[in-house]
């Protein structure tokens, strides 16, 4: 592939079929809406409409395919598309952050793949090739990788070696996958059912009111027994577990994490096969988490918060969904993260921080309890909720702790699920010390370290430290950032 491939190429012809299959149902759905509005519900009219939709869909699919051209040059890829508004996009290889190859079920049957070229810019579909032959996709990916590397090193002539077998860092057997699925208990199917019911309700096909008459409700009440309720609960539980297993298998089937030159390469999926490379340079924080039961059995999940990665997952990429600690440590080391210190090394927030956390809930709870006695017993429900919230807050205080060594800051937290975050000092963006009114009264403060790709729910912070300790910790983190950065710089110069 030394000579530039400068001929403009079209997408794989199978794209026609895929796009057609995507367009026509949309048009039909819109048509059904129109028909419902116009009250013309003859079968003949609908068939005619369907035929028109199919024909139009074919035309649109063809126009898209015909007007979509991409040219792979030695250092850049050019994508031209659009019928009336022609758009020409040039993506230099050294700007490419990530190349994802995604294969849905149909694509796998047709031997094609969707290639997504990400540059870290804001646009959603920056460089999507949907879709090209799988062999082309793989060749393109390797070509871009080589191109990006060559541009970075500015060293030519060095013939890139044939892709060697990448070392496997983590893989999941089918047995492990099914086992992991048991912990993925999910009631998502309940949401799905209620969504369907809502849709049906909106279409107005079923008149619920005529179903639920008082007589029927009475009759139903006689049928409802304790056994039935328990049976139903068991059924829901069972379905939740099945849903968890199915979801896990669909997502993580054939999970393989390998060490590629650009970073950690993750492949997974049953019907939709996805491949993502997590560039090591762009990892910010390592996150090890475990649920109440899975943690007790020694299973954890490792993910990395990355910069500019897929926003769908909140910038967090899973590296090992269900693994033993001794499997996680080598992956951490490979990604350049230090090993977390032993439990004893973690310090928790001072005792009075517990009062800070539950103060509000307890105050409201006491007021509501008073209200329950004086005015309305229903205020007691609110008091009970407050008691639960206070309990949750106390649990959070118990699990919250931090430790540090010469390389990183380690923070634990969580309610039932425990999370351990590893933040190497050089990944720091800004450091803040925050004191709310109650915190000030109790001489407490929270230290937050902002990192690239963090979110409000998912950040590194140490809540309710002693005020003086918090200020000192912020300054220590700042110095540690400089030292770590200078060490790294020294290494890259040498």
């Amino acid at each position: 592939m030394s000579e530039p491939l400068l001929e403009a190429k079209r997408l794989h012809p199978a794209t026609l079929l895929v796009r057609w299959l995507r367009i026509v149902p949309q048009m039909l759905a819109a048509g059904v809406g129109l028909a419902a509005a116009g009250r013309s519900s003859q079968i003949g009219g609908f068939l005619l409409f369907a035929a028109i939709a199919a024909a139009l869909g074919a035309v649109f699919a063809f126009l898209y395919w015909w007007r979509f051209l991409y040219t792979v040059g030695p250092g850049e890829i050019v994508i031209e598309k659009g019928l009336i508004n022609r758009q020409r996009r040039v993506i230099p290889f050294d700007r490419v952050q990530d190349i994802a190859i995604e294969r849905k079920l149909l694509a796998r049957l047709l031997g094609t793949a969707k290639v997504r070229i990400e540059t870290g810019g804001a646009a959603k579909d920056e460089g999507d090739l949907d879709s090209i032959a799988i062999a082309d996709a793989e060749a393109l990916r390797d070509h871009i990788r080589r191109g990006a590397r060559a541009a970075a090193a500015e060293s030519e002539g060095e013939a890139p070696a044939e892709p060697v077998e990448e070392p496997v860092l983590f893989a999941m057997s089918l047995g492990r996958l099914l086992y992991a699925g048991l912990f993925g208990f999910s009631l998502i199917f309940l949401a799905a059912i209620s969504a369907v019911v809502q849709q049906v309700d909106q279409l107005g096909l079923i008149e619920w009111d005529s179903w639920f008459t008082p007589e029927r409700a009475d009759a139903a009440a006689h049928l409802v027994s304790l056994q039935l309720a328990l049976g139903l609960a068991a059924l829901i539980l069972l379905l939740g577990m099945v849903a968890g297993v199915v979801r896990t298998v669909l997502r993580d089937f054939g999970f393989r994490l390998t060490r590629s030159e650009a970073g950690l390469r993750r492949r997974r999926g049953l019907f939709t096969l996805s491949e993502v490379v997590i560039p090591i340079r762009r990892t910010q924080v390592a996150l090890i988490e475990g649920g109440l039961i899975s943690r007790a059995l020694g299973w954890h999940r490792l993910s990395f918060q990355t910069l500019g990665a897929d926003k769908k997952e909140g910038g967090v990429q899973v590296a090992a969904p269900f693994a033993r600690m001794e499997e996680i440590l080598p992956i951490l080391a490979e990604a350049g993260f230090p090993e977390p210190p032993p439990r004893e090394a973690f310090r928790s927030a001072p005792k009075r921080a517990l009062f800070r956390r539950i103060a509000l809930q307890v105050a409201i709870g006491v007021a509501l309890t008073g209200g329950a006695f004086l005015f309305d017993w229903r205020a007691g429900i609110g008091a009970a909720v407050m008691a639960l919230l206070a309990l949750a807050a106390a649990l959070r205080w118990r699990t919250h702790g931090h430790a540090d060594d010469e390389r990183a800051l380690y923070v634990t937290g969580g309610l039932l699920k425990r999370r351990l975050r590893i933040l190497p000092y050089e990944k720091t963006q800004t450091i803040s010390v925050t004191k709310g009114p109650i915190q000030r009264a109790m001489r407490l403060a929270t230290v937050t370290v902002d990192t690239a790709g963090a979110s409000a729910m998912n950040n590194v912070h140490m809540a309710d430290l002693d005020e003086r300790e918090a200020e000192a910790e912020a300054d220590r983190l700042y110095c540690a950032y400089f030292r770590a950065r200078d060490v790294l710089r020294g290494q890259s110069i040498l």
Partner: protein
Amino acid sequence: MQPDEIQDESRCEAADPADGAEAWTPLDPAHVNVLRVRAAILAGAAVLIALPFDIGPLRETAIPVFAVPGVVLTLALLLAIVYPARRYRAWGYKEGEDELQIKRGNLIRVRTIVPFGRVQHIDVAQGPLQRSFGLATLTLHTAGTQGASVSLPGLRHADAEGLRDRIRAKIRQDLV
């Protein structure tokens, strides 16, 4: 990396809290006036919202005419006169060798350290009100998320630009 050895020490001493407690630079005093005018505008808006109620629904009750807008106006004016000075005092900044520290917030107090090496770009912005007082807001943007942009309002326009230029020069130095 040898020349950095000495600099390294100074970096960390600059952030030492023991001697840094009184070293905060306050904002320009004119910033209080900006805050006052802003609060006064808000007060006017609140009274404007209260007035129709006074003409309409409140006439049905025993509440005397002008009572509600009067109370709103008094509260708002009090806030406009008293509170801005407190808010102004809560602000402060420290320009270090390699970092900018900003403290802000009256109710919730926040101190933020922004290393210059993390600054992606810098804005100096001037609203219409700020312009009439000759003030500007300096904003440092980092690649972070929550503290991604750190703003420092109420600087003299020339000071803001000077600070921006110094930070820019340091970032450039950092890149070399």
